[in-house]
C-alpha cells in the first residue's frame, strides 16, 4: 500500500522510537498489552504494520468488500436505527412501554420511509412455547418479558398501530413460526396482506449452545429455521428471516474471534440447508441479519464489525457464488451494548459504559443500535433509565459531528492491522469448525458450549484475581456486594393472574372442535414435514396459519411441534 521509500523511513523511525522508549521507560514498558481475545498488541502502529494489506480489502464505504460500511454516506443520510428490545407483564403493559419509547424517539428511518418499531421480547413461558396456564409456566409469567399466547393478546398489543408502517420482531425463538402465523392472521383480520408487512423473524433455533434453554435438537432446528426462511422468501417481500446472534455467543463467554466464527458458521450451515431445500442463495441471504455484541474492549469490538462485513462479502461471493450486492452486505441492525459488561454495583457507572459501547458501535458503522439501560443488571429497565439510553444515541447523533464523515477510523494503522488480524484468526476458527463437521455437529458434541465456557472462565478468573479491573466491583468498591440488587422497576404482581384470566375468557369463546381439528391436521403435517425433508419444505407454515385462524393458542401450536420434533438437550 506504500512505496518502498515510505516504508523504509517508517521502519527507521519506528526503530528510533523504540530505542528511545526503552531508554526512557525500560524494555518492559515497550511490550504492549493484549486485546480481550488475547491478541498481542504493540505499543504503537505505523505504516509497516499494514504494508501487506491490499488497499482493495479496505476500499471505500459502500464498496465491496464493505469493510468500511455498507452505505457510502452512512449516517450523513440517516441516523443509525434505534432498535430497543422491550417487554414485560401483559400485552397492555408492553404496549405502554412501546408507546413511551416511540414518544422519546425510537423510530426506524430507511431513506424516506419512517417505521415505528415493535421489538418485543416474550417472557420465559412464551419463549418456551407455553401458555400462562401451563403448570410449568408458574412463577414466571410476565416476569422477564411479555406474556403473549392468544389473538386477544395480539389485539391488545397492536390495536391502532398501522401494520404496514411498523417493523415487527418477536424475540421468542422457539415459537418464531407460531408467532409469525398468529401475526399474519391478526394482520389478515385487520385487512393487511403478508406482502404489506415489514417484519423480521428471529428464528435463532441454533442458539442452544449459547442460551441454555430446552429446545429442538440440531436436526429439527435446521429444518424449522429453513421452513421459516422459505415462507418469508415466498410470501413477505420485506421480511428479515434469520437473526444471527453474535450477542448470545458473546454473553455466554465467546470472545470477538469466537463470536465472528460462530456467527458465520451458523450462516454457512443454514445456507447449505436452504440450498438443499431448493432455495437460491440470492433469494434468501439478503434476509439474514446479525445481532452483534458490543463490549468494552472498544477497538477490538470496532474491528470485529469491520471484519464481519468483509468476511461476509467474501464468503457469499466466493463460496456461495452470490451475485446480488444485497447478498454480500451483512446487515447489523441491532449492535447491542454488552449486558455482561454492566455491573450491579454503582449502576450509574453503566451509563458511561453504555455510552462508550454505543460510540464504538457507531464508529464501527453499524446499521442500528440497542443501548442497554443502566439498570439492566438489576431488572427490567425503568422508564427513566430507558429514556436515558435513547438520549445517549440522540446526543451522539446531533451534538458530536461524528456523522459528518463515513467511517472516520478507516485507514488508521492500528484499526486496519487489527481488522485483518481478527479476520485471519476468525477464518482459522471457521476452518476448525468445518473440520469438526460444521456448526450442527459442534453443537451436538458440546464443543461449542465448552469453547464458550472456557473463554468465560478465563475472563471470570481474571476478574476474581483482580487482573481485569471492573470499577466499583473489584477496584474502588464501596458497596457491600451480595446483599441483593436494588430494584428500580417492578412488574405488576397480578400479571400471572391477569394473563390466566384473559386466556380463560379466550378459550371459552372459541369453537373447540375446530381447534382440535386444526391441531390434528398440524400434527399430521408436522410429521410429514420432518419425515420427508427436504422435499417437505413449505408445508408447515400454511398448517400453522390455518390453526391460528381458528384461534389455536401459542401453547397449543408449540405443543404439537414439540411433540413431533422433540425437544431436549444435545449434551
Amino acid at each position, binding site marked *: 500500500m506504500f512505496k518502498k521509500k515510505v516504508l523504509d523511513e517508517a521502519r527507521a523511525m519506528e526503530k528510533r522510537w523504540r530505542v528511545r522508549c526503552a531508554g526512557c521507560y525500560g524494555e518492559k514498558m515497550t511490550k504492549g498489552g493484549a486485546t480481550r481475545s488475547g491478541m498481542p498488541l504493540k505499543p504503537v502502529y505505523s505504516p509497516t504494520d499494514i504494508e501487506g494489506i491490499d488497499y482493495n480489502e479496505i476500499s471505500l464505504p459502500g464498496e465491496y468488500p464493505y469493510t468500511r460500511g455498507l452505505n457510502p454516506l452512512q449516517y450523513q443520510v440517516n441516523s443509525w436505527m434505534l432498535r430497543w428490545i422491550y417487554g414485560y407483564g401483559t400485552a397492555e403493559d408492553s404496549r405502554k412501554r412501546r408507546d413511551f419509547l416511540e414518544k422519546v424517539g425510537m423510530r426506524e428511518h430507511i431513506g424516506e420511509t419512517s417505521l415505528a418499531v415493535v421489538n418485543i421480547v416474550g417472557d420465559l413461558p412464551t419463549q418456551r412455547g407455553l401458555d400462562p396456564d401451563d403448570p410449568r409456566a408458574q412463577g414466571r409469567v410476565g416476569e422477564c418479558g411479555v406474556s403473549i399466547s392468544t389473538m386477544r393478546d395480539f389485539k391488545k398489543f397492536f390495536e391502532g398501530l398501522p401494520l404496514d408502517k411498523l417493523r415487527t420482531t418477536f424475540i421468542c425463538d422457539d415459537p418464531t413460526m407460531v408467532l409469525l402465523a398468529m401475526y399474519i392472521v391478526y394482520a389478515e383480520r385487520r385487512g393487511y396482506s403478508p406482502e404489506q408487512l415489514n417484519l423480521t423473524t428471529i428464528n435463532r433455533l441454533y442458539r442452544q449452545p449459547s442460551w441454555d434453554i430446552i429446545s429442538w435438537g440440531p436436526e429439527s432446528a435446521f429444518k424449522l429455521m429453513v421452513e421459516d426462511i422459505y415462507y418469508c422468501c415466498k410470501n413477505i417481500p420485506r421480511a428479515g428471516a434469520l437473526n444471527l446472534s453474535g450477542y448470545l455467543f458473546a454473553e455466554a463467554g465467546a470472545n470477538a474471534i469466537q463470536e465472528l466464527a460462530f456467527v458465520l458458521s451458523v450462516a454457512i450451515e443454514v445456507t447449505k440447508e436452504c440450498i438443499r431445500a431448493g432455495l437460491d442463495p440470492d433469494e434468501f441471504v439478503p434476509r439474514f441479519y446479525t445481532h452483534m455484541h458490543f463490549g468494552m474492549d472498544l477497538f477490538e469490538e470496532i474491528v470485529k464489525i469491520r471484519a464481519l462485513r468483509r468476511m461476509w462479502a467474501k464468503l457469499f461471493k466466493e463460496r456461495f457464488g452470490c451475485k446480488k450486492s444485497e447478498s454480500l452486505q451483512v446487515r447489523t441492525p441491532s449492535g447491542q451494548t454488552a449486558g455482561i459488561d454492566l*455491573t450491579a454495583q454503582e449502576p450509574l457507572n453503566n451509563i458511561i459504559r453504555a455510552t462508550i459501547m454505543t460510540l464504538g458501535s457507531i464508529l464501527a458503522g453499524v446499521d442500528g443500535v440497542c443501548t442497554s439501560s443502566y439498570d439492566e443488571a438489576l431488572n427490567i429497565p425503568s422508564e427513566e433509565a430507558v429514556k436515558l439510553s435513547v438520549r445517549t444515541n440522540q446526543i451522539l447523533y446531533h451534538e458530536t459531528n461524528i456523522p459528518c464523515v463515513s467511517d472516520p477510523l478507516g485507514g488508521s494503522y492500528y484499526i486496519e492491522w487489527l481488522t485483518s488480524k481478527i479476520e485471519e484468526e476468525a477464518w482459522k476458527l471457521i476452518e476448525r469448525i468445518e473440520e469438526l463437521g460444521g456448526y450442527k455437529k459442534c453443537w451436538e458434541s458440546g464443543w461449542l458450549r465448552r469453547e464458550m465456557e472456557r473463554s468465560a472462565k478465563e475472563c471470570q478468573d481474571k476478574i476474581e484475581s483482580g487482573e481485569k479491573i471492573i470499577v466499583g466491583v473489584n477496584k474502588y468498591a464501596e458497596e457491600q456486594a451480595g446483599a441483593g440488587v*436494588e430494584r428500580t422497576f417492578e412488574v405488576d404482581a397480578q400479571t400471572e393472574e391477569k394473563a390466566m384470566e384473559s386466556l380463560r375468557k379466550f378459550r371459552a369463546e372459541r369453537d373447540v372442535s375446530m381447534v382440535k381439528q386444526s391441531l390434528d391436521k398440524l400434527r399430521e403435517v408436522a410429521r410429514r414435514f420432518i419425515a420427508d425433508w427436504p422435499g417437505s419444505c413449505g408445508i408447515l407454515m400454511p398448517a400453522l396459519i390455518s390453526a391460528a385462524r381458528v384461534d389455536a393458542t401459542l401453547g397449543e401450536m408449540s405443543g404439537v411441534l414439540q411433540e413431533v420434533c422433540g425437544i431436549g438437550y444435545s449434551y
Partner: protein
Amino acid sequence: MAIPTKTKKARVLLAKSEMEAHDRGIRYVATVLRDAGFEVILIRYEIPDEVVKTAMEESVDVIGLTFYSGGVMHDTSVIMRLLKEQGMNDIAVIIGGVIPKTLIPRLKEMGIAKVVGPGDSIKKVVEFIIGKTTECIPLSRLKDR
C-alpha cells in the same frame, strides 16, 4: 475460620430451570467447586420438585440455585417446602443470580442460607460451603483464587 481436620468431599447440587437461559454463572461456580475438591452435580429441571428428588438420591450437603429471569420466589418456596416435608432441612440452600434486595427477607424466612449475586467473589461461595459442611476438605487445599 477454623480449618477442619478430617476430610470428606462435600456434595453440592447445582440446579437451573430448563427455561433459564443464563448458565454462565452456575457453570463457573460448578467448575470452581469441582477444582476445589467438591463433588458437584449440575442439573436442569423442568419443575422444582426434581431438585428435591435429586438432592435425596444423591444425598447432597448443599443445594445451589440460580435465577436471572424470574421464578425465584415460586421455585424456592416449592423446594424449601418439599425439603422440609422430606426431613431434609439440614441441607444448606444457597441462591445465586440477580436477586432483588426486597425479596431477601422473604427468602431468609423460607430458610435460605445465603444469597450471592453479581460482583460477589467466588471465594465467598467456597468458604460458605466449607463452613456449612461438618467434615470437608481443608482450606489449605483450595487453590489460591
